[in-house]
């Protein structure tokens, strides 16, 4: 760690990991409700568990991105953070707001929560991923703006590299696209159309810039490859991302009342979206192969390579699987979508967060890398979680194929609930694999507490 203020990243990373645990616990509750329908009903109905699962995911990824920015920007800009105090204050505001929101989900009926938090003033709640009360949404905007101010000021007074420029673009894009969550017209078609400007233009747009910048930063540090080479790759990757991903939004406009020309535009451009993910895989492997130093943090290297591979599989391959309109006609809104959502989110955004955490945490704790014993444990966590998500994806894909076949393709279409019963074996397998994922997460977290011989920070 070269600048003292980089240390503000630490509470962000710790809180992110705590929320990750909460996310997985609620995932397991839902996984059980899939096969044991009235488990915890009516105390924690499925929709409530789902809100906690997905919102915890989004919030912890954002926490991780912010931590990453606080760690990486001073080092890239070669100057202390504009205001470490502001960063710490924002951390607490964000954490308390997230905590209160989850307590709200779990303790009062959603309709009551909507009423007491002023949803009538400006109805924005009750849409997938954007379930947060108006107050929370406003809080997110305020925290994001203050955070961006802090980061932008730091970059303005320091060195401007490709990495911190791209990161900043991604973070500003993230905040700007979130503003569309306040637009909720009565016209359902328009509502859905602009809802995707948040969801799709996040994960297949601006978040990829953040992903690329974090990966590039870690690769420079662990491989020692020339900045020039790495930054060129970064620009190529994000060009491919936005050239394909912006119009690729059209793959969500096939069946929601929008014009049919989107079937052509959406299919063509989104079919090209795997290319930047493939470029990222090549990027990670190429840089590691051309490394000029042997960095003692092997675990961080593993996470970086893993991000390259799993993002390509989850977003690229599983995305392509259902993105062409004639295929999507049958798979739209089935377990195939859930399969893709899990591997893509894990492979791209969970893993890049764990990459920067793996790289930065030891440095913030005063050493170049953790002890060998700790790293071996961390790598066990890597493999347990990663192999689990692969199997979760495979089981959901199997359930999805069965669902599509029984409910949508066969001559005698089966009602939804009956088709779900037929897939219950796969849901059980998914749930048990989820338990293994949780074990992997616990092993991963345990690695933070394992001592042993460590190398001092360089």
């Amino acid at each position, binding site marked *: 760690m070269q600048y003292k203020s980089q240390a503000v990243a630490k509470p962000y990373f710790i809180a992110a990991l705590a929320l990750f645990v909460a996310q997985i616990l609620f995932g397991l509750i839902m996984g059980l*409700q899939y096969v044991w*329908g*009235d488990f915890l*009903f*009516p105390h924690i*109905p*499925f*929709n*409530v568990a*789902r*809100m906690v699962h997905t919102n915890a995911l989004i919030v912890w990824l954002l926490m991780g991105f912010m931590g990453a920015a606080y760690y990486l920007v001073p080092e890239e800009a070669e100057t202390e953070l504009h205001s470490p105090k502001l960063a710490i204050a924002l951390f607490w505001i964000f954490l308390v707001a997230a905590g209160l929101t989850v307590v709200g989900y779990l303790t009062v009926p*959603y*309709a009551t929560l*909507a009423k007491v938090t002023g*949803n009538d003033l400006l*109805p924005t*709640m*009750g*849409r*997938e991923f954007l379930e947060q009360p108006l107050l929370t949404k406003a809080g997110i905007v305020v925290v994001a703006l203050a955070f961006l101010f802090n980061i932008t000021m730091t970059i303005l007074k320091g060195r401007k590299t*490709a990495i911190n420029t791209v990161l900043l673009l991604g973070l500003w894009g993230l905040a700007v696209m979130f503003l569309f969550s306040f637009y909720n017209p*009565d*016209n*359902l*078609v*328009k509502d*859905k*159309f602009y809802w995707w400007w948040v969801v799709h233009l996040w994960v297949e747009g601006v978040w990829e810039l953040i992903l690329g910048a974090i990966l590039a930063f870690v690769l420079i540090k662990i491989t020692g490859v020339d900045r*020039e*080479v790495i*930054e*060129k790759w970064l*620009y*190529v990757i*994000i*060009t491919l991302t*936005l050239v394909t991903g*912006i119009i690729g*939004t*059209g793959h969500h*406009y*096939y*069946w*929601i*009342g*929008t*014009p049919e020309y989107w*079937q052509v535009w959406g299919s063509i451009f989104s079919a090209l979206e795997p290319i930047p993910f493939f470029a990222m895989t090549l990027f990670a492997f190429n840089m590691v192969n051309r490394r000029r130093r042997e960095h003692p943090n092997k675990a961080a290297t593993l996470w970086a390579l893993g991000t390259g591979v799993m993002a390509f599989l989850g977003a690229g391959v599983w995305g392509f699987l259902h993105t062409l309109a004639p295929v999507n*006609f*049958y798979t*739209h*809104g089935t377990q195939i979508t*859930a399969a893709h959502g899990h591997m893509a989110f894990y492979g791209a955004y969970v893993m890049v967060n764990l990459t920067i955490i793996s790289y930065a945490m030891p440095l913030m704790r005063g050493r170049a890398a953790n002890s060998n014993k700790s790293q071996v444990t961390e790598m066990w966590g890597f493999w347990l979680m990663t192999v689990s998500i692969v199997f979760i994806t495979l089981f959901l894909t199997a359930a999805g194929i069965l669902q599509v076949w029984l409910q*949508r*393709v066969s001559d005698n*279409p089966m*009602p*939804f*609930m009956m088709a*779900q019963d037929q897939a219950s074996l796969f849901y059980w397998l998914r749930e048990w694999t989820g338990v293994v994922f949780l074990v992997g997460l616990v092993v991963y977290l345990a690695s933070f507490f394992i001592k042993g011989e460590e190398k001092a920070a360089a």
Partner: protein
Amino acid sequence: MSGTFTTSTARNIFYGGTLFFLLVFLALTFQNEQIIPKRDRREMLANPQIAEGKKLWETNNCIGCHTLLGEGAYFAPELGNVVVRLGSKEAVKAFIKGRPAEGIAGRRSMPQFNFSDKDLDAIADFLEYVSKIDAAKWPPNVQG
């Protein structure tokens, strides 16, 4: 990568390429706004019940279990065409009204929301409106 393809070339291609495709996307969006009035049944929104129904749909988080035009959660049936599947708005209202508060043993359960008859009418009107949106012949069949 060759010597002429420098980082600043790559950067310029990034800004130029992004801007170009962003403008194409905005043009498509503009055209989209011109065409959807023929497909989105906005004239039905003259009935204020539908906006009320949408609000009830949102504030009770129905999307947390169901899909609507294929988007949402995959735990419970698609509702974009439920008025067609169950045959009438009356049947939809009866279904929602009839959910046991304690759920159904062993079966995926839907909460009892204790809606007033007025609320139920609004929700049914909203779901009927959704079923009339021109969704390019999706879903493939009535099972959703």
